[in-house]
């Protein structure tokens, strides 16, 4: 039995579709109810929905053998897991964004509001730039508007939210997409099963790419 942690929301639903298409379906998951875990003993899988930022925790600690997590979460928390496959879905960019006419005053410490303090710190460290990190949990775009910060580091998908708030992406830090991750110990004890799942996902991906 492989335990699969799926991120709640659109990405998780899409990821489940891919897994189902790859032969790991679990019809119970489509029923609308409040159940938290869904099992298909025939296919040897059990799914559960967790908060997207918690997927890597479930996998790292072995409560889930494998999971689907965004590269943003993996970069932010650096969990000790295997990152086996890029699923190519949930594509977006980690960006520095700010006012469209942003000018960086070299005499001031840059104030950066973000949900991803580690990613932001690492990025500015790599440029040897001192910054003041402001960790927020949501509505990051508000920070520069109210003067709480100079810029933000956040995920940009289409840039629409930024545009509506008269902000613009200034620099791209890294490209983000969903990854298939595995617990390191599970990989050893359930090697065949996990590889079968990875290979099925990979075949599915190439098929999709070919269709596009």
């Amino acid at each position: 039995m492989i335990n699969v942690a799926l991120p709640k929301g659109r990405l998780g639903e899409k990821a489940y579709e891919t897994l189902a298409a790859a032969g790991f379906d679990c019809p119970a998951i489509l029923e609308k109810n409040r159940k938290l875990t869904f099992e298909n003993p025939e296919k040897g899988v059990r799914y559960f929905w967790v908060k997207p930022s918690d997927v890597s925790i479930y996998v790292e600690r072995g409560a889930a053998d494998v999971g689907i997590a965004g590269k943003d979460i993996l970069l932010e928390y650096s969990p000790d897991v295997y990152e086996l496959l890029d699923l190519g879905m949930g594509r977006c960019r980690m960006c520095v964004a700010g006012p469209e006419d942003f000018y960086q005053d070299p005499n001031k410490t840059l104030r950066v509001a973000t949900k991803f303090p580690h990613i932001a710190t690492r990025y500015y460290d790599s440029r040897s730039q001192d910054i003041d990190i402001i960790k927020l949990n949501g509505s990051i775009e508000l920070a520069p508007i109210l003067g709480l910060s100079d810029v933000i580091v956040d995920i940009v998908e289409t840039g629409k939210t930024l545009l509506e708030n008269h902000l613009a992406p200034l620099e791209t830090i890294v490209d983000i997409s969903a990854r298939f991750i595995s617990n390191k110990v599970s990989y050893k004890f359930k090697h065949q099963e996990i590889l079968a799942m990875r290979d099925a996902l990979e075949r599915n991906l190439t098929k999709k790419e070919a269709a596009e």
Partner: protein
Amino acid sequence: MLEERLNPLYESYGYRRFRMSKFEDYDLYAQNKDFLRRGNIITFTDVDGSLKALKPDITLSIIKNNTGDTEKVYYNENVYREMGGTFREILQIGVESVGAIDPYAQAEVIALAARTLETISPDYVLDLSDVSFVGCLLDGMALEGARREEVLSLLAQKNAPGIQTMAREGRLTAEASAALLELMELYAPLREGIAQAEALARDEASRQALRQLSRTADILAAFGLEDRIRLDFSLMNSLDYYNGVIFQGFLPNVPVLALSGGRYDPLPRKMGKDVGAIGFALYTGRLEESLRQERQYDVDLLLTYGPEDNPAELAALASRVRAKGYSVRCQEEGALAAPIRCRKTVRYTRGCSPEEVLS
């Protein structure tokens, strides 16, 4: 207790127990900071003004005390380390072989690691790598500095998408990326794995590393461990100190690393000793939580009594039940007591026999 089962194993291979005091000069750890996984150490000033530390590690002390002779030791010692943001006292069980490390001595330590895991669970997994082989391969790709670090951390994550991204960005040649992908995919029983790795060896040094590995595999086969050990080049220990074979052990239902070890000749060399060294440690702190057997009951029999009962007769009955191998707790009926799980509760009555209360 775990150590009671493991110590006879080490002694049957002629390993001597190494004992040490709780404290060690702080200098030892300061000078070898990169050998310790985490730098945080509990220090204090001794009465003579010297700076001491509560030992965070045993290996350093064993090497420090080595006089250049061949030594085979094991230890069960408490170490003090930071875990999850606080200092903890952890029992560490380990084995070190110091001196002239010939192929037999090396294989013996690996075999002992396997037997250690086997003692805990027959379904263990022991994985082996050789950092010198990985090093040669990366040298052959002319990977230095930050790029080498990046590749090593991707290798540790079996991060195929990361390698592909590096290749796409032109930071790895197509040939190097293909070899790295093959390297991280490799996960097979030792001999089979070595055969697969031969296709990746490009120079004499890496072929030499594989030949040595293959010799180790032969000796391990003689220990009856041929199929139990798998080759996995994605294993990483702190690389600066390990220079040859490294290995890690895993146990079913323990979601973290259970055992880790390897060949670390650079450490004694750094301390000015012309010896080699190989050893391993078992992370008992992590095992305890997973291995602790769930007890269903705290006590077999709860014998309740009232104020009118004769304590001497009650004590006599309880002793006779205990003599039959059952645990008995006597408690006043209706007393406010902390919750306890008992297999059976019996109200004491005068003159009843052990057979009656147990039936």
